[in-house]
């Protein structure tokens, strides 16, 4: 799952070193438009529905956090 999420991220921003950041949000890597695309990619790729209440910075700060988010989201 981690690998796929990293791929999705590098499609969004080719060449950006996502592995070097421990907090994508604080480091300014992701803006609102990235979050919108990211959510639709994650939902499509892992067949889940991410609830609006889960769209908070803590769930998008790292690849690990996104893995947790996907695991805890409702399956379609």
């Amino acid at each position, binding site marked *: 799952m981690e690998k796929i999420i990293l791929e999705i991220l590098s499609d969004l921003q*080719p*060449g950006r070193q996502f592995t070097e950041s421990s907090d994508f*949000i604080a480091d300014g890597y992701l803006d*609102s438009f990235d*979050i919108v695309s990211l959510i639709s990619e994650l939902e499509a790729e892992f067949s889940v529905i991410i609830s*609006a209440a889960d*769209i*908070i*910075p803590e769930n998008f700060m790292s690849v690990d956090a996104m893995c947790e988010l996907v695991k805890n989201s409702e399956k379609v």
Partner: protein
Amino acid sequence: MINFVTQYLDASAITYPDHIAFEEPGKRETFKSFREKSIAIGTGLAKAGMFKSPVLVYMRKGVDCLSAFMGAAYSGNFYTPVDVSTPAERINKIVEVLRPKAIISEEALLENVGELKHDARVFTFEELAAENGGEALIENALSRLIDTDLLYVLFTSGSTGTPKGVAICHRSVIDYTEWVVDTFKIDQADVFGNQAPFYFDNSVLDIYSAMKTGATVNVIPEKKFTFPIELLKYMVEYKINTIFWVPSALCVVANLKALQAAEELPPLKRILFCGEVMPNKQLNVWRRHFKDALFANLYGPTEITDVCTCYMVDREFTDDEPLPIGKPCRNTDILVLTEDNRLAGPDEIGELCVRGSSLAMGYYGNPEKTAEAFVQNPLNLCYPEKIYRTGDLVKYNECGEIMYLSRKDFQIKHRGHRIELGEIETAAGAIPGMETVACLYDTKRSRIVLFHRGKAGREEIFSSLSKKLPEYMIPERFIELEEFPYNVNGKIDRVKLKDYL
């Protein structure tokens, strides 16, 4: 008689001295303190002998930026804000056109200012704000100014890679502000939630209608827009009741289902938008949650001072219907001209052209481009009269409202920003090893797509463009082609390219 926008501030500082004029987390200015700061900035500029000169404001977005703008206005100068996150290479193109006499920046940004090629005098905001005793200097400067002198120059994308500076005078902003305040009945109890960057002219509505009426502008931190639930919480906390946002910001909130999930909704009375097409699908989500709020679709390019038509949403629309852009604003005339310069009849498509006090004085330092877009009204052969040709194709619907159809050229609107695809192509084409490039806009997914051929790889293109273009102009998809399709004239076949999207 109001001739300068500074008179709005003078009056509000007397009528509502202790009312909050502008605020952001951790900082607030009353009308009295805001005016004092602006006068101090103006004093510093006037003492340096600057008058009717360009002032580049190179500061992070916030309340202090606004004092810098007003300082420029009080001293009879005009301001140009730039986005500090824009690469120096592009800001240098703006500097080259504007040739600022002064740059107002912050201590923390002086290193970046050092990267710019300019011959301006550099001031820090802090040093200017410490000036005093300049009321007489300010009075003298304004006594030599007239209302068709410039207030600001805002830069928009240019197809050859050189941004165009739209020069707007005091008269145009006053003409616009009076309409906004009367139409939307803004008063001192209102609180604007500002989203528009200050280098984008949507911010003119927030800033000047508040300054005229004594209302408050809350400058919402940009980061709040990334997580809409937090954004809504912020708006509740600051009692924001009026917003004028770019549609893509409203769409993000709707798409992420934040309105459904929020514990409490802000007390919104007016929801206005402008800058690109607002889709009814997302607008309907907003309308379901704010049944009593006024919704208005505004339309206009920077060249006519933000807005020239308005549609007050007064009926139901299905998700796939387009929203009208409405009717001309007060003291504005819209001519829909056919290719042979006739007024378009019912169901006929024409170019939207504008007549009014709202027209820019032209493109700063660019008489050629000015002459192309600001032309003699072809329907008036008797005396000089300018109209602005927007390049937008429109037609009237059965209610007599104007419907936006498309562009005449390769300009696009992305996240509310006006972008010439040619500017991106010019930047991408200059990357070493690049052979052929073409840029298209994928309207369905709202993203910029770059087709490329040559030795340069995707990562190299991305990092190179990031150094030349502002973030909103960076393509979001890169498609490498072995061969480009060409049409009979030997030009890249853009219609065929669309099939690859």
